[in-house]
């Protein structure tokens, strides 16, 4: 049946208001839950990179463990600790969007560092967040380096839209465990990073190489570039901590 233009316009406006209203209510109503999920997810990834958390089911227990064992600081490109931003407001490491910073020049970014403490309070491992481009969209990582600042303790990858079953596999335990025990510096102390090679089931991998993912070479390239870039950015801080560690060792 043919209806007047006025009817159509009024109908569309009313429909838009109703549907838009529903969506706004849902969005606002679910926001706190979603934020908590994101926060939990971030802390889970930080902890997951250093320690086995698969037995912890309760989210609150996880958050408590995080508060107890993780200390966060923020460093700049020179490796100096930053406490306030340009406006003089304090910076909280967990609130830093690595994704937003990724678009800035490496020199202008601030870098969160998470120190994982052992039961006795001494530093056990360092967790470095990273960001990069995969094949389709962003990829990210939390890389945990042992207290020797060379050996990889663990790594937790994340991604937005890597191909399910192919590039998406970077989030699986199988792929992530390949990084464990690899080293980021070579014997002469230069940054070597860790490279994911092409193809699966490679033999004779060096201490700086991990096995690849069949069908996901482009994702692997993104992962390699991300590790290269961010380890480079964290290098000044790592060197600084290392030399300070040496000084402490000498004075003792």
């Amino acid at each position: 049946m043919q209806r007047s233009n006025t009817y159509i316009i009024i109908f569309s406006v009313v429909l838009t208001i109703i549907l838009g209203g529903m969506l706004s209510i849902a969005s606002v109503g679910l926001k706190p839950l979603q934020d908590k999920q994101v926060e939990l997810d971030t802390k889970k990834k930080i902890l997951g990179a250093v320690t086995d958390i698969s037995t912890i089911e309760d989210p609150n227990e996880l958050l408590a463990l995080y508060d107890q064992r993780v200390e966060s600081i923020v460093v700049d490109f020179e490796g100096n600790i930053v406490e306030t931003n340009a406006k003089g407001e304090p910076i909280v490491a967990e609130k830093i969007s690595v994704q937003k910073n990724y678009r800035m020049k490496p020199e202008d970014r601030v870098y969160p560092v998470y120190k994982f403490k052992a039961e006795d309070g001494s530093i056990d491992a360092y967790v470095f967040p990273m960001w990069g481009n995969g094949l389709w969209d962003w990829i990210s990582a939390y890389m945990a380096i042992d207290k020797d600042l060379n050996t990889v303790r663990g790594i937790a990858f994340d991604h937005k839209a890597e191909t399910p079953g192919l590039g998406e596999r970077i989030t699986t335990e199988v792929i992530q465990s390949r990084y464990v025990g690899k080293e980021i510096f070579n014997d002469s102390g230069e940054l070597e990073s860790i490279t994911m090679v092409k193809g699966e089931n490679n033999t004779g991998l060096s201490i700086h190489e991990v096995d690849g993912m069949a069908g996901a070479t482009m994702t692997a390239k993104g992962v390699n570039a991300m590790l290269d870039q961010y380890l480079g950015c964290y290098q000044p801080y790592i060197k600084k901590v290392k030399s300070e560690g040496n000084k402490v060792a000498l004075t003792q």
Partner: protein
Amino acid sequence: MSTETIEKTEVKEEVSQPAEAMLSKRRRKILSDPLNEDNPITVQVLGICSALAITIKMEPTIVMSIAVVFVIVFSNLIISLIRNLVPGRVRIIVQLAVIATLVTLVSEILKAYYFDMYKVLGAFVGLIITNCIVMGRLEAFAMANKPYDSILDGLGSGFGYAWIILVVAFFRELFGSGSILNFKLAEIGLDFQTNGLMVDSIGAFMVLGILIWIQRTKTGYVEH
């Protein structure tokens, strides 16, 4: 006076008479047709895109199935309820708006309660909007039928879609990843070489092709 009242009651009876059984033969047919003889994927060949994309593993496929059933049923219901109000000239946009709203709701709820699943399915949930099955049912059925029938039709089409993609996902996960519902078969001694082709969309095409072949041999359906 008296004749008027008699007439009125007669009319009332006429209206209430066609109240057919909740699951009459006709309604059972609405529900069961899309499961087999008029399956949205294998016969109507709709919704192929998502059938290829999300069937690598069974777990996300199950979530996707639930999401699609939810969206089809409720969009069918809503459109059927307002079918007499919708101006014919903008009906497609209205249908799209309803679908998009429901899909966004599903996506938001997943993000709030099943964050891990949201991360896996994220992009694909949004693509339910473009799943031709949903819009196809709205345009072909809900625009011309009563709400209850439309719900049945939505359930039928939704489950018709769901069982096909679940079967595809089962075989793809079995041969592509060597597992069923993330349970590695290698753990119970069934260790075999997995096939990388199955992880690719090509694997879905092959499984789907075989399914269509079997089904059409049985039902004798021929494309004209």
